């Protein structure tokens, strides 16, 4: 039994210091306060002065409270029994189930040897065209969802969780609002996915330091399952809260801040977590999707900015839609050449035209007269938004590609698009008179209305 220290020297923010010898860096300790027990972790050693960050916060800690070092770093149980269970940011059950103490594993293990990784080649189909067609999700990918408060990012996350082809889901909530936590729980329960899920939930009302552990817990457990051959999807929401917790600790520790108060190692800290996404050679995989809310919708804010440099692309969720500009899946090239041969052409061609539409739309709102080319673009843009971008569209990749050609043929002559001639020959739909080219699909009414709108505008302008 290790010695109990009962003299706390200082309490600053969530960091306390005690005098103790023989303590190891990142070792765990238990602090007994009048409010109960809390875990704490060593974050600095200066001779025999030990600084600890207290997971449950320092409120109510007395200078004569007991601190006992546990001689081991942070650990988390790992077993099949965790499936369907909900834990806190300290790794203890949050549901009313029994606590799990068997088979404890260390969190924040060593990095994967790049030589043991394999090139990801498996696409994860989600039946969301903006993902499947334009920015395919790939096994082992790490992708943030850049968004702002108020956007339906958690809804998107839950939908991907339910529709994606994976073996199990680990959800990490950091500073999650309680109702959002309940939303996830209900959504996965209704979708029948709860029994293949594990939750580590830190809610907005929990002490901030506890949130720091959540990504590590999720990824440590996920990694073990992946090594057993499982394809694991890790969902984290919201990593901006994680970065803010890091900032708080860094400032408490009087570190020199680098950018807007965030510590200089923000990039490394985020990378350490995101890089756990992996496709193991002859074992399973971890795929990570992480919500990152952008304060002030500013992508150059340090958190989204650093994240973007780490992750393999990003989804922008804006106005309830995944934006085609800026959204990017860096791994899509690995998978979209063996789906269908027109996949890449549709992906690039439609976006290029949509970019032109955006320019025209800008001109239109400024009151310029629309040329016949502009009118074509306007029609195209509206069709694209309603039949591809709308989040409620749920169709397979192949259907989405077919729809793409139909939209193009409905708006343009084939040579106005910059597609390769051989593809045009094979895929360009043959027009017959009086036939609605775009299939009725999910929202026929949108198609009709928008088209008329477009012509009305033209009349007004001319």
């Amino acid at each position, binding site marked *: 039994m290790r010695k109990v220290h009962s003299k706390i020297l200082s309490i600053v923010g969530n960091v306390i210091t005690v005098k103790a010898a023989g303590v190891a860096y990142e070792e765990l300790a238990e602090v007994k306060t009048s409010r109960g027990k809390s875990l704490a972790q060593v974050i600095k050693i200066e001779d025999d002065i030990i600084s600890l960050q207290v997971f449950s916060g320092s409120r109510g800690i007395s200078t004569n409270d007991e601190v006992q070092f546990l001689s081991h770093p942070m650990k988390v149980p790992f077993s099949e029994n965790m499936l369907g269970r909900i834990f806190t940011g300290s790794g203890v059950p949050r549901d009313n189930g029994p606590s799990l103490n068997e088979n404890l594993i260390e969190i924040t293990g060593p*990095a994967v040897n790049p030589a043991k*990784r394999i*090139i990801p080649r498996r696409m994860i189909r989600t039946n969301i065209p903006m993902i499947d067609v334009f920015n395919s999700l790939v096994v082992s990918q790490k992708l943030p969802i850049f968004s702002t408060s108020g956007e339906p990012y958690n809804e998107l996350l839950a939908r991907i969780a339910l529709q994606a082809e994976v073996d199990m889901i680990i959800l990490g909530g950091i500073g999650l609002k309680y109702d959002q936590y309940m939303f996830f729980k209900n959504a996965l329960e209704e979708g029948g996915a709860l029994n293949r899920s594990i939750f580590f939930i830190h809610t907005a009302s929990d002490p901030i330091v506890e949130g720091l552990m959540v990504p590590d817990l999720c990824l440590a457990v996920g990694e073990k399952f992946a090594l057993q051959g499982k394809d694991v999807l890790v969902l984290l929401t919201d990593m901006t809260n994680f970065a803010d917790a890091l900032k708080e600790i860094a400032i408490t520790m009087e570190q020199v801040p680098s950018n807007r108060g965030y510590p200089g190692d923000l990039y*490394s800290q985020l990378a350490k977590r995101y890089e756990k996404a992996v496709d193991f050679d002859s074992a399973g995989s971890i795929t990570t999707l992480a919500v990152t809310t952008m304060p002030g919708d500013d992508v150059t804010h340090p958190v989204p900015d650093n994240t973007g440099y780490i992750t393999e692309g990003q989804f922008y969720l804006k106005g309830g839609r995944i934006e085609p500009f800026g959204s990017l899946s860096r791994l899509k090239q690995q998978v979209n050449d063996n789906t269908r041969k027109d996949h*890449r052409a549709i992906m690039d061609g439609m976006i290029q035209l949509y970019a032109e539409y955006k320019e025209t739309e800008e001109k239109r709102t400024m009151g310029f007269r629309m040329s016949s080319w502009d009118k074509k673009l306007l029609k195209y843009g509206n069709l694209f938004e309603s039949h591809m971008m709308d989040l409620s569209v749920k169709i397979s990749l192949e259907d989405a590609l077919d729809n793409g050609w139909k939209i193009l043929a409905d708006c343009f002559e084939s040579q106005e698009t910059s597609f*390769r001639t051989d593809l045009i020959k094979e895929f360009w739909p043959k027009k017959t008179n009086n036939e609605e080219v775009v299939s009725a699909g999910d929202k026929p009414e949108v198609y009709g209305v928008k088209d008329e709108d477009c012509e009305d505008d033209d009349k007004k302008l001319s």
Partner: protein
Amino acid sequence: MSKRCGNIKLIQGNMICVGFDGDIIQNEVGYVVCGKERLMAEVIKISGGIAYMQVFEDTKGIKAGDTVEFSGKMLSVELGPGLLGQVYDGLQNPLPKLAEDHGFFLPRGIQLNALDYEKEWHFKPIVEDKKNKKISKGIPLGYVREGIFKHYIMVPFNLNDEYELEFVAPEGDYKIKDTIARIKDGKGQVKELNMVFDWPIKIPIDAYAEKSIPKEPLTTKIRIIDTFFPISKGGSYCIPGPFGAGKTVLQQLTSRYAEVDIVIIAACGERAGEVVETLREFPKLEDPRTGKSLMERTVIICNTSSMPVAARDASVYTGATLGEYYRQMGLDVLLLADSTSRWAQAMREVSGRLEEIPGEEAYPAYLESRIAEFYERSGLVELNFGEKGSLTIGGTVSPAGGNFDEPVTQSTLKVVGAFHGLSRDRANARKFPSIDPLDSWSRYFSFINADLIKKAKNILVKGDEVDQMMKVVGEEGTSIEDFVIYLKSEFLDTVYLQQNGYDKVDSATSLERQEYVFGKVYSVLNKNFNFDKKGHARKSFYELRQLFIDWNYKKWGSEEFKGQESGIDKFLEAY
């Protein structure tokens, strides 16, 4: 000899403070004894009897009072035959070997030999074994065959005297630690030489006669670079760009197709996935010049973002040192560092822990000089034995928020010879490469006549002006002449500046083809078209664009290539 040791006083993140007795060297390597593990660390500051050291591994579990053993050596790499085709971490541990020994993860405290000590190499002497033969650092004693190269076995660069050659081994098979020569210095002391020696990575290798001005172009087979913003052998260039603009894809293409002897890829603090792609693909890809695997001319230094931060700093220097080593053999070497911003951030982290007064954006005040030092390791040199070798350095920069007005980009721009600035707008519009033709520059010379380049650039500038104007006055307010200039600039951009990086043919364009196609593109730019209506002009240019895009996909010199060309000629004749 007694080991010099110290005791740990303070631990915070990957920095430790160590109390020591006796003497200590700046940048000396020490080992933290943590249980059974020995963790490598480097001295970065000495003050008041305390050595500040950065640990190259995770510091979990280290205790105050733990011992640090000093090695007496600066952070060094092993230089000798067998480097090519290797995949190292920032400290020159071979990663495949680590995987073989330790499985999926990178264990702490493992240091492996960088080179295979058991492998035998066929050595052929080239100096005459003659008494009184004078010899100095960098002079080749003989060579071994490493892949397609003659790997010179040279007098180690750290021997600064003039020596007399006493003995050189006869032709035969030797292990790298076998003695292959004996030399005697002025005081009569004899040294035995083998095929391998150490060199401290932070010190540039200077065993050459003279550094000259880079003149010869380095062909990357990327049209916008070779034609408009060229690089020279022995020069340096940088690619700053926001995330998602295609820095890494550009680097990967360059590493594949660049016409140099050896490519060293320093993946510094970037995604592991990208390295894996190189790692797994290169052995299968054929080097177009030699017909052998691309891996045989490549060395990968890989310190991805999840690997310890301190080793990131080491990885770029390791890359530069290996590059200089092969340059010393008269070869053309290209070092690609991706990304130098991660390296700068590593410096910032260390500086913060040392509680130095922060400069701009909390980067240390010496950021600029470090970056300058690094890029200045590039160069075209005349060696001590008459041959010429070059090291070209290309670094990517990842500026925060994609804003080039930040310290790392600005410090880099001051010292490089070419700037390939990537633009978010071009990337969003799926234009690849997203090098901005209006912002970028190069101080090196293109293989195409400078006047033509100037005129072509002029069209891009004017086209952009017209485009801006059209946004204000609309298409109807633009004269047809201006509109045609706009179309021409769009045409040049689409069919020549942009390239499909994933197409077999279009991803690499030889100089010969570039010259030919540019001639044709230029004739379009130079042509007086008489269009009566804008709609007509637009339609014609779109058709022409289509013809050229299809032409780009045809194999150089093939029948289809010629057929497509005559189609273009016919189309042009009609105007």
